[in-house]
């Protein structure tokens, strides 16, 4: 598509529930990134995909968080047993360069605002 698309734009859930957040990157972009942004803070890196594989998942806070990108395009961020502290805006970004290929410019989506009650 023309830009990075994220769905849903807003998600309200109850503590303990499972949520999935979807990201559709710019067509042809091989690199895809998930970030989390809490109120008043800058985006915090979660995970980065180059193609289908997770090249760096060092930012995932714990094993309740998992992300996949099975066909190298759309990605899903999955959060199990949600906690109130998971409430944040989850931003997805994509770029057409990745590991060792030069300085990157990430294009961000509008984000999915997750609220855990």
């Amino acid at each position: 598509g023309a830009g990075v698309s994220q769905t849903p734009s807003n998600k309200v859930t109850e503590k303990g529930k499972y949520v999935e957040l979807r990201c559709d990157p710019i067509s042809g972009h091989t690199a895809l990134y998930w970030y989390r942004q809490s109120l008043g803070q800058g985006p915090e890196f979660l995970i980065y995909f180059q193609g289908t594989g997770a090249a760096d998942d060092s930012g995932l806070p714990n094993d309740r968080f998992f992300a996949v990108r099975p066909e190298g395009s759309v990605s899903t961020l999955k959060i199990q047993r949600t906690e109130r502290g998971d409430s944040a805006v989850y931003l997805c970004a994509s770029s057409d360069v990745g590991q060792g290929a030069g300085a990157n410019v990430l294009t961000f989506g509008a984000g999915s605002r997750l609220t855990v009650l």
Partner: protein
Amino acid sequence: EDKVVQSPLSLVVHEGDTVTLNCSYEVTNFRSLLWYKQEKKAPTFLFMLTSSGIEKKSGRLSSILDKKELFSILNITATQTGDSAVYLCAVEGDNQGGKLIFGQGTELSVKP
């Protein structure tokens, strides 16, 4: 640990003023520094800087990098209400695959 610190955290000015936003960083094997503008949700790209002393300019916005002192500034001249946003600074280290480390952001409010 890689780190980006921005100052001030917030700033209120009047239309027509000039502002300077600061970004200092520590990163292993620096590759680039980027500035983004965030108005609602999606950060939008402004500048990417890789070399010291070379000013990047776009309209009323300009930015410069000092790799020796490890900082960058973003200048906005003749500010307009449409410049109101959070300005984010981020750095990329070498072999990081595009992983950006962001600062906390500077919230700029331009009053009419």
